[in-house]
């Protein structure tokens, strides 16, 4: 039998790193040791994750490997045993094993990169402490074996991204972006919590595997509706949590602002931790979605629409990190679309490859920003000469994201589209026509993705330096240190070859690992050519407009075209809508509540004090200082009490003696 080390050690390592850094290395003069603690912890975590995954690969019968410990039993004395047991535990199955490897690998590379990127920052120690906590939270979320535990880590991930997005808390925009990320995701989390409560109430357990068994056998005891409606409601509630975390429409607005954090944080958030959590949650709770066809359709539609919405916005943005952020939202839409089509393997495959090339692209962007000192791509240009390594790795990332053969993005995106094209669930719920619409959206996004990635790369790395600032910037433009380039090269290698994970030549390794039969291609062979053709067309179109320092769009003057461009550039008015309607509505409501609080609630408190004051002022008249008046009142009161008692025939005193 193989030895699989206890899974709880994997999240425990970054936690230990967090505690060590917090205790010893926060002070600036000792902070230079902090990253090595975290890197060591993540190397060990990666080794443990790999051996866990390999253990499962060689001995599939081991899965699911669960370790459980009771944390708290509610009503343990009742005759029927405990009503509800809260437990902590770990669950190792192919899904969590894959995720463990991805998360610890990408985290490790991002941390190595951070050593160089954050050098000289005042909060060096604090940065790595938060990063440790972030890795701990995400790894804990991945290995959780029940909903309560996953929710705890879910919120921890949210907290960490709040702390890291607001890392430069002195600047107002970073502080606001952190708040926005925290509050917007909170909207989804409320639904998630309600879903957990409803589901655990109906199943009397939080445990994934027990709940799965209950749903499959119809053993739930829902307290409203029948089982099928109940499961749909619960699935949608859980999905609302994923919508918030994975930045799906309509809660996607926080992710582009989240770039206010240091760039490696963006890389981590966009690739391996925060947004991946939402996709992972849907995959983890897939048994709930699987039991409800309509919930899956909602997931697919939201995913497809988000992919399209974000891809169009990405075309018009000029901030590097914003383009990448919208690209992430768009790709997350793909993952949700795949999950909605019923293919966990496709969703997780795209999550894996996306983690590699999106982390790569963010780290490249960080390298560029580090060197040029601006985020605006129109102030860059011609950087390819000075930064050969960055330009080359960024090109690999861009091609992978665009889905060009034979890079990893091609395979995963193709798998997503194929799973949509062949999804029987979507066809039966939406009709074949409805399914084709989703597929069509997916294909349009392929074109858009290739378009905006080529635009980004061409504007930054080709042509001549632009603008006054750039003359200076170009002089200073320099290649980043090796500690930043090493992760780029590793990630670029992964971005190239990760497609092999699920390639015919390796016998669809990932599919077999996840326990899915064959690839869904069979009847959708044409799709490969269509999507590759669209990607190449997108690259060519974009190059024609933006290549070699051109800006073809600047020549467009037709009014309707400009109107559309502005509409997309303003992010479909979504931010303005939230700002103008939602935020103002909340502010108006809060003003009403504030008035009520100030005048009604406070009125009661102030009124009580006022009453006491007035009463006191009135009563003090009686305190004259005239001793004899007091005695008069005393005697009168005693006499009056005596008369009243006598009149009522009430005797107060010791028991009367009844004769000798």
């Amino acid at each position, binding site marked *: 039998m193989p030895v699989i080390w206890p899974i709880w050690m994997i999240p425990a390592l970054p936690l230990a790193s967090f505690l060590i850094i917090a205790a010893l290395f926060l002070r600036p003069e000792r902070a230079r040791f902090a990253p090595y603690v975290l890197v060591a912890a993540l190397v060990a975590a990666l080794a443990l994750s790999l051996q866990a995954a390999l253990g499962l690969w060689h001995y599939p019968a081991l899965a699911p490997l669960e370790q459980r410990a009771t944390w708290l039993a509610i009503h343990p004395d009742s005759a029927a045993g405990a009503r509800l047991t809260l437990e902590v535990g770990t669950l190792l199955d192919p899904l969590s094993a894959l995720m463990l490897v991805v998360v610890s690998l990408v985290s490790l590379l991002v941390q190595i990169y951070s050593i160089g990127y954050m050098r000289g920052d005042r909060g060096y120690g604090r940065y790595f402490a938060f990063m440790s906590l972030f890795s701990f939270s995400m790894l804990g979320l991945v290995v959780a074996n029940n909903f309560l535990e996953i929710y705890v880590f879910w919120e921890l991930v949210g907290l960490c991204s709040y702390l890291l997005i607001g890392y430069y808390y002195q600047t107002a925009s970073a502080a606001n972006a952190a708040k926005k990320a925290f509050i917007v995701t909170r909207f989804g989390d409320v639904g998630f919590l309600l879903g957990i409560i409803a589901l655990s109430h109906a199943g009397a357990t939080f445990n994934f595997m027990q709940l799965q068994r209950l749903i499959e056998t119809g053993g739930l005891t829902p307290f409203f509706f029948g089982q099928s409606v109940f499961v749909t409601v619960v699935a949608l509630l859980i999905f609302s949590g994923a919508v918030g975390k994975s930045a799906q429409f309509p809660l996607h607005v926080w992710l582009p602002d989240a770039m206010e954090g240091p760039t490696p944080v963006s890389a981590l958030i966009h690739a391996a931790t925060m947004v991946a959590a939402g996709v992972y949650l849907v995959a983890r709770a897939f048994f709930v979605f699987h039991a409800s066809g309509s919930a899956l359709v909602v997931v697919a539609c939201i995913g497809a629409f988000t992919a399209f919405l974000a891809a169009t916005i990405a075309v018009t943005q000029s901030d590097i990190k914003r383009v990448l952020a919208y690209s992430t939202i768009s790709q997350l839409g793909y993952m949700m679309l795949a999950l909605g089509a019923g293919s966990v393997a496709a969703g997780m495959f795209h999550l894996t490859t996306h983690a590699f090339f999106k982390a790569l692209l963010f780290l490249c962007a960080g390298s560029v920003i580090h060197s040029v000192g601006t985020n605006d791509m129109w102030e860059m240009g011609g950087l390819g000469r000075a930064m050969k390594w960055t330009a080359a790795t960024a090109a690999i990332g861009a091609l992978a994201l665009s889905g060009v053969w034979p890079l990893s993005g091609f395979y995963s995106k193709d798998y997503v589209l194929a799973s949509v094209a062949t999804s029987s669930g979507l066809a039966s719920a939406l009709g074949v026509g409805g399914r084709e619409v989703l597929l069509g959206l997916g294909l349009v996004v392929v074109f858009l993705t290739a378009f905006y990635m080529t635009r980004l790369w061409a504007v930054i790395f080709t042509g001549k330096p632009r603008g006054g600032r750039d003359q200076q910037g170009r002089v200073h433009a320099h290649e980043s240190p090796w500690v930043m380039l090493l992760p780029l090269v590793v990630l670029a290698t992964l971005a190239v070859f990760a497609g092999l994970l699920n390639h015919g030549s390796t016998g669809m390794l990932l599919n077999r690992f996840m326990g899915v039969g064959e690839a869904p291609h069979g009847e959708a062979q044409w799709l490969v050519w269509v999507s590759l053709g669209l990607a190449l067309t997108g690259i060519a179109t974009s190059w024609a407009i933006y290549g070699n320092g051109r800006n073809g769009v600047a020549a467009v003057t037709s009014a309707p075209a400009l109107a559309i461009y502005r509409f997309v550039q303003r992010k479909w008015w979504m931010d303005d809508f939230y700002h103008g309607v939602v935020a103002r509505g909340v502010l108006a409501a809060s003003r009403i509540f504030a008035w009520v609080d100030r005048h009604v609630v406070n009125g009661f408190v102030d009124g009580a004090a006022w009453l006491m004051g007035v009463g006191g002022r009135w*009563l003090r008249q009686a305190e004259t200082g005239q001793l004899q008046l007091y005695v008069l009142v005393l005697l009168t009161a005693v006499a009056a009490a005596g008369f009243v008692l006598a009149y009522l025939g009430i005797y107060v005193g010791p028991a009367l003696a009844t004769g000798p």
Partner: protein
Amino acid sequence: MMQSYLQLHHYLIVAALLFAVGAFGVLARRNAVAVLMGVELMLNAANINFVAFWRYIDPARLEGQVFVLIVITVAAAEAAVGLALVLNIYRTFGTVEVDRVNTLKG
């Protein structure tokens, strides 16, 4: 026991009158010493009641007499403390008229 014309209520009437005189002294006299004397009269009215009730209701039990002795003791202590207070009031205010000692008021 020889038949007496004096009944319980005669004693009670005397005690009540004595109490009323004492109360009048306490309430109406301005001289602090006279107020103290009024208090003594009220205490003694109570003493008469104790003794009368003991004698006419249950002579076998001694509580009535015992209470009277306690009241006399307390009255002595009260007179001592009261006169000391009066002396201090006189030193502070230069008067023993209770209606002029009214600085403790709201």
